[in-house]
């Protein structure tokens, strides 16, 4: 009988373990040197961050010969978002190195953002020396404790010898299974201590075994549901993008003639030019996508998590549908809706297997006739296309027109980034996406200020993997942009020539839209007065001058002619960042819209038009009429 051991579960720091064998083989070096070497051996090519006291030993080891490029940001939050943009654009793991205390707390927002959107990140933070932990030392913060609720996993390293193994584990955890952020908090003690370095490292992860291969039985069940479905819909989410499953999704759609509707992060998973793509569904989705989902008899959720912005009122979402739910994270299955067929596995692998089984089944029994389903879908598409007013009451630009014009003039390989707000919805609705991994936006957390740093990260990624041939356009709002505008300096100095389109309506537009619709037009604290069209009053900041102050090209556009010329010019400049300040109408609204918490059946195409309700359009604001609508 082994005698019970002292319990560590309550402790903050590892108790000195007596049974730990000292490692004496390998190359002797400091923890900081080992950290840099490990990143190189992991194949990390680009790192984002800002130095500081508790991480200085590590920065001391970054030299000209270091095998990765270091991108010096101006704020830690931006370093995190840049790493996210980089990760989404390239499929690599985003890596940041920041200091302790405020450096680490500034990283909390991007960590939470990456956690919501399943973006693979390794965040390395400095920490005070082991002896100073718990003493409220200068720039001390309990980084691991602060980030518990928003990480996939986290480490506190107190011993230099652990650095190579822990970084290798962190990198592996971040990119496998359901990707996510991993925090590695490294005490100064470990950075300056000595160790014997060897590579490769053996990973010790007994509690981590993500399932990637689907179970055979559930595939048969899924094939059966397809066989008997006459109104199927593929509801594709960000998980399919992370799994790089665009080809497989398209194959499944072609095999089964199913329409594809996507969530915000999955825009572009299959090219918009494909007639099976109905666009985004949910709160600001197309009528065709939302309607098809409401009326379908088989809903195939692929790497999607039934977010409330997608489903509206959960009880009224796709009420007649059987559900097949494919996800690599077992906890997503049954979280918001109980599926008829749960399939746990990596989306690409699952779809490869499923497509094979469907082909075999169809060879024997043919496939259902979906003509009437497509007739219905096409009727919705024709009756309710994405439409907007090209002219505005005050003669300013129509923001939707600007987005469409940007899309028209852009190269097909363009990577698009956005902030959060109205401009993000218009970008998602109106850009023609032709490639997966070409749309970078903050979905789950909805982080304003995400855009510029993410675009910089994407541009660094474009330079790394695509020879800089994929241009990066950022579509941002004046409010969202100002939350991280200091990164114009990074974009210029660190050579990340992004193109920036600010849809400047001088207000927090999405909040103003809700105030217009739900808060009696009481515009409380939403006028930020950075684009008043009366030049004599307030115009702060002047975005053109701001761009010029940071070495970038700044252009202002108030008319369609100016806008077209400005976009043309921006597309021709590739040696420095370009910013265009588009003056747009402040009361333009994002339509279609489902009000928060309402059934998707109440979708408003434009004020007064609710295509999925019976005739009069006035009902559907309460539960009874919603029920009536779903029972039709």
């Amino acid at each position, binding site marked *: *009988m*082994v005698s*019970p*051991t*002292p*319990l*560590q*579960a*309550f*402790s*903050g*720091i*590892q*108790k000195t*373990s007596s*049974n*730990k*064998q000292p490692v004496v083989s390998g190359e002797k070096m400091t923890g900081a040197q080992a950290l840099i070497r490990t990143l190189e051996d992991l194949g990390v090519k680009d790192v984002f961050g800002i130095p500081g006291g508790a991480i200085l030993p590590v920065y001391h080891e970054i030299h000209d010969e270091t095998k990765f490029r270091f991108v010096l940001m101006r704020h830690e939050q931006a370093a995190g978002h840049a790493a996210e943009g980089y990760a989404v654009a390239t499929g690599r793991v985003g890596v940041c190195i920041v200091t302790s205390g405020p450096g680490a707390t500034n990283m909390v927002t991007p960590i939470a953002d990456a956690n919501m959107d399943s973006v693979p990140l390794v965040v390395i933070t400095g920490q005070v020396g082991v002896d100073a932990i718990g003493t409220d030392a200068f720039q001390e913060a309990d980084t*691991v*404790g602060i980030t*518990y*609720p928003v990480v996939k*996993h986290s480490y*506190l390293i107190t011993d230099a010898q*652990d650095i190579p193994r822990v970084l290798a584990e962190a990198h592996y*955890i971040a990119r496998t299974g359901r990707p996510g952020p991993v925090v590695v908090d490294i005490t100064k003690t470990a950075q300056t201590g000595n160790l014997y370095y060897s590579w490769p490292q053996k990973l*010790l*992860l*007994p*509690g*981590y*075994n993500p399932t990637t291969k689907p179970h055979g039985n559930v595939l048969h069940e899924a094939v059966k549901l397809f066989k008997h479905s006459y109104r199927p819909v593929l509801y594709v989410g960000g998980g399919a993008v992370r799994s790089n499953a665009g080809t497989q999704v398209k194959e499944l759609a072609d095999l089964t003639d199913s329409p594809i509707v996507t969530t915000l992060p999955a825009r572009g998973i299959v090219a918009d030019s494909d007639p099976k793509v109905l666009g985004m569904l949910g709160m600001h989705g197309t009528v065709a996508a939302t309607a098809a989902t409401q009326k379908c008899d088989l809903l195939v959720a692929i790497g999607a998590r039934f977010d409330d912005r997608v489903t509206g009122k*959960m009880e009224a979402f796709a009420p007649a549908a059987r559900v097949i739910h494919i996800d690599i*994270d*077992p*906890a997503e299955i*049954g*979280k*918001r*809706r*109980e599926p008829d067929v749960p399939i746990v596995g990596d989306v690409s692998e699952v779809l490869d297997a499923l497509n094979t089984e469907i082909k075999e089944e169809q060879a024997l029994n043919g496939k259902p006739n979906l003509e009437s389903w497509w007739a219905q879908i096409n009727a919705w598409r024709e009756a309710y296309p994405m439409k907007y007013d090209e002219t505005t009451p005050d003669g300013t630009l129509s923001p939707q027109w600007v987005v469409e014009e940007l899309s028209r003039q852009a190269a097909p390989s363009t990577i698009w980034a956005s902030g959060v707000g109205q401009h993000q919805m218009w970008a998602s609705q109106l850009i023609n996406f032709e490639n997966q991994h070409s749309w970078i936006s903050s979905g789950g957390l909805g982080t304003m200020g995400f855009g510029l740093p993410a675009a910089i990260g994407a541009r660094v990624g474009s330079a790394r993997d695509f020879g800089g041939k994929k241009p990066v356009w950022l579509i941002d709002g004046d409010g969202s942009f100002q939350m991280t505008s200091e990164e114009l300096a990074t974009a210029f100095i660190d050579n990340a020539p992004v193109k920036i389109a600010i849809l400047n309506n001088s207000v927090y537009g999405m909040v103003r839209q809700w105030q217009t619709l739900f808060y009696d037009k009481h515009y409380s604290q939403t006028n930020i007065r950075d684009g008043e069209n009366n030049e004599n009053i307030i115009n702060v900041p002047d975005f053109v001058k701001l761009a010029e102050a940071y070495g970038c090209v700044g252009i202002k556009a108030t008319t369609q002619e100016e806008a077209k010329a400005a976009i043309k010019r921006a597309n021709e400049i590739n040696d420095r960042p370009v910013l265009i300040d588009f003056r747009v109408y402040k009361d333009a609204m994002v339509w279609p819209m489902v009000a928060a918490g309402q059934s998707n059946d109440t979708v408003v195409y434009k004020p007064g038009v609710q295509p999925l309700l019976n005739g009069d359009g006035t009902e559907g604001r309460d539960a009874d009429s919603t029920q009536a609508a779903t029972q039709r």
Partner: protein
Amino acid sequence: MAIYPASTPYSERHTLSVLVENRPGVLARIAGLFARRAFNINSLSVSPTERPDISRVTVTADVEQVPLEQIIKQLNKLLHVLKIVDLDNMDAVERELVLIKVAANETNRSDILEIVRLFRVRVVDVNPESMTIEATGNEDKIDALLGLLNNYGVIEMVRSGSVALTRGPHALSEKVVGSEITGR
């Protein structure tokens, strides 16, 4: 499928045994998960086990089936969690230890001692004004004992929370892959 609030007074009692790596911060991760997923627990006890690299967390909660499944899945996502077993589906021995300080004087001491004898529990401290009783048993027994002692006035009380083992010759940790956790 509304899962919140996860716990209601009328929900069934469940006991979970969670095997975790014996590492710093494990308890904080588990406790934090319960709190942020709105999962109310009755008791939680953490202890070392037969293996130096593994600790065992025993949790009891009154909870509906659906939120219970969700919380088990969320627990499984924590890398330090090695195995979770819902002991309600298994034949298990469940015990809890309680120390109760009862207001006892010469007039009612013999009555209290009668209760102690009936419940086969022990007196561990006696004072002219009080008596401290140590009791072990499953939760029902301890609740019944407390119900009786309440009449005399309970001055102070502490309960350990349930701990439980499955019956038979096997250990839950047998199914845990790899015992390489030590040596970190």
